[in-house]
């Protein structure tokens, strides 16, 4: 296991038990607060924000881009699923955030159906919240298929996080 991957895996394991329990009880979608251009539920789970005029938050837009770079070759366009892999727009709504994270970090094997592990891939890990909120927005039909037409500006804090993460 590379350092990056094991780091994330440990962090996940630590946070998992308590947060997962909390999440079941609460609303996994509704925005409770915003911080530096990122939106969260009451349980501190990342979520999307779509304004009345259709403007999406930066992460949702970025998630659209990253999803269609890293995931669509197996999961199909717009999180719709394919002949090869499940529709992630459903998974993102139905799965616990931490389970979702853990599948992407560690991969999953089910006979000859294999989800790769992306734990040591910065092009995925630095944008996984983005991909997650985008897919959740798709699953709730909060954004239509295709490229979101209008987006919030990228917050400085998000840019800084990205620079730190991508190295």
């Amino acid at each position: 296991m590379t350092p990056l991957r094991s780091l994330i895996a440990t962090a996940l394991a630590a946070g998992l038990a308590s947060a997962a329990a909390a999440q079941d009880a609460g609303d996994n979608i509704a925005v409770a607060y915003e911080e530096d251009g990122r939106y969260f539920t009451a349980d501190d789970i990342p979520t999307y924000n779509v304004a009345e005029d259709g403007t999406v938050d930066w992460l949702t837009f970025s998630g659209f881009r990253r999803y269609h770079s890293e995931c669509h070759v197996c999961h199909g366009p717009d999180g719709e699923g394919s002949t090869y892999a499940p529709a992630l727009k459903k998974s993102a709504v139905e799965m616990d955030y931490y389970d979702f994270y853990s599948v992407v970090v560690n991969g999953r094997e089910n006979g000859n159906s294999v989800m790769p592990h992306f734990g040591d891939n910065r092009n995925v890990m630095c944008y996984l919240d983005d991909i997650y909120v985008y897919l959740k927005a798709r699953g709730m039909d909060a954004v239509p298929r295709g490229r979101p037409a209008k987006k919030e500006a990228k917050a400085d804090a998000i840019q800084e996080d990205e620079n730190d993460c991508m190295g």
Partner: protein
Amino acid sequence: MRKLPLLTSGIALCVATMASANDDLMTQMDDPKQWAIQTGDYANQRYSELDQINADNVGDLQVAWTFSTGVLRGHEGSPLVIGDTMYVHTPFPNIVYALDLADEGKIKWKYEPRQDPEVIPVMCCDTVNRGVAYADGKIFLHQADTKVVALNADTGAVEWEAVNGDPSKGETNTATVLPVKDKIIVGISGGEFGVQGHVTAYDMKTGEQVWRAYSVGPDDQILFDPEKTTALGEPVGADSSLKSWEGDQWKIGGGTTWGWYSADMEENLFYYGSGNPSTWNPAQRPGDNKWSMTIFARDIDTGEAKWVYQMTPHDEWDYDGVNEMILTDQEIDGEARKLLTHFDRNGLGYTMDRVSGELLVAEKFDPVVNWTTGVDMDPESDTYGRPAVVAQYSTEQNGEDVNSTGICPAALGTKDQQPSAYSPKTEMFYVPTNHVCMDYEPFRVAYTAGQPYVGATLAMYPAPDSHGGMGNFIAWDNINGEIKWSIPEKFSVWSGALATAGDIVFYGTLEGHLKAVHAETGEELYRFKTPSGIIGNVMTYERDGKQYVGILSGVGGWAGIGLAAGLTNPNDGLGAVGGYAALSDYTALGGQLTVFALPN
């Protein structure tokens, strides 16, 4: 005229010293009752002399027998028929079945390799395999994990194994192999993982590596002779590849070799194309990125390149150059020419002199192709042989983090690997095509060994302002560079075509139809809906005086992934969502061989 006798005796000599292994395969290939190689013959014409099934009676075709492969993934390639045995392969886990045609298709032997499932996730876009090859009493399988296996054709026993690549670096395989002379020539996949593409020859008897030629890198790795290897008639000079890259990017530079291979025994050359330079973000790899996106003519014995032609210098759209090279002998202006015809992902149909590498024709084989205004055909020009790129559709000129919209064709190309057929009777090529356009936004990515290295976001949709479908099946005149007729299809045509002396052309559709059309007119003569979408290639053989036509069904591959849920055009604005056909409304996973014949 003087030279001719000398030349022929030279050929005779070289034929005589050729391994007998190859004589066996040549005999099998020459017999139209067999289907001895995936590509129909070394020329990749996919043409059969059989004419029992013909334009007059193909409408009566019936299912003769079927076989389930037991695997539910994209089934590319086709079975082989050698003597009494049919060899059927599957996608991962790459099972091979030998079926006894003399005993109602009873399974004579089955080979199932043990492969690490870790290879599955490094195979971009489904775990397809384009079939086994035969020569010298052996069946050659190139597995997903890049192991090349020689099996005894009678028993299925392993005769030798060779490991061609390293899946932990993203090196995998989807292609068949080329058995030629005393060698097995094999390619590699992994362009989306920063693999340095190569072709490798193994000894047919022992599996020992004979030579390896990379697509990108220093001259001794790409097996170029700076003085002798030519591009459009001129020697390429020293470091022709290295000079076209910045820094060490070539080491993860792509140019993979997962397409079809053809061979001209007279010239002792084999032909193939290389794939995209990696990453998909052109800003990260300044230069022409030679020799990605290139047609190669290499010596069969030494691997040395005789000539090259780079179709898409500095790719900005993922237009891999791996599609088949079809070899024909035709007349141009009354002169007999040895030609090579290639339908590239970039939407241009190329006709070249396969001996000299001279470019004769480069024309769009789908009128919607818009990224280029055409190729400079003036030998005196500085940009001779280069396509003129339209600025509006240049993802390089528009820059990183800019979404370039309305580019035709999409990354999957006007045509992908699905092979075309050629009929010497009509002198037409029958080409399965995609009719899909895209938006493409490149951005910066980091390289991690064994992880995808893509760097662009894509949205694909049916060609706007056209018939609304995502494919066409066309007939092409390679001398004049013209479409003769075009059949609109709802989905991309992802199945390999077969042309026969019965004046018919067969192909499959993603909905699952096997179709037969008239070779002259394209008129539909027959269709039958098989259990799953077709991305396999149509083949034919004869047994006990009866002609059969076989096709593998099993939807998947790039097409199954991209089209399962249907496409939407983001530029249509809201409201058009779901406006295009979804493959999942027509077909589901499968894995079946269907064999057709005329009623008794």
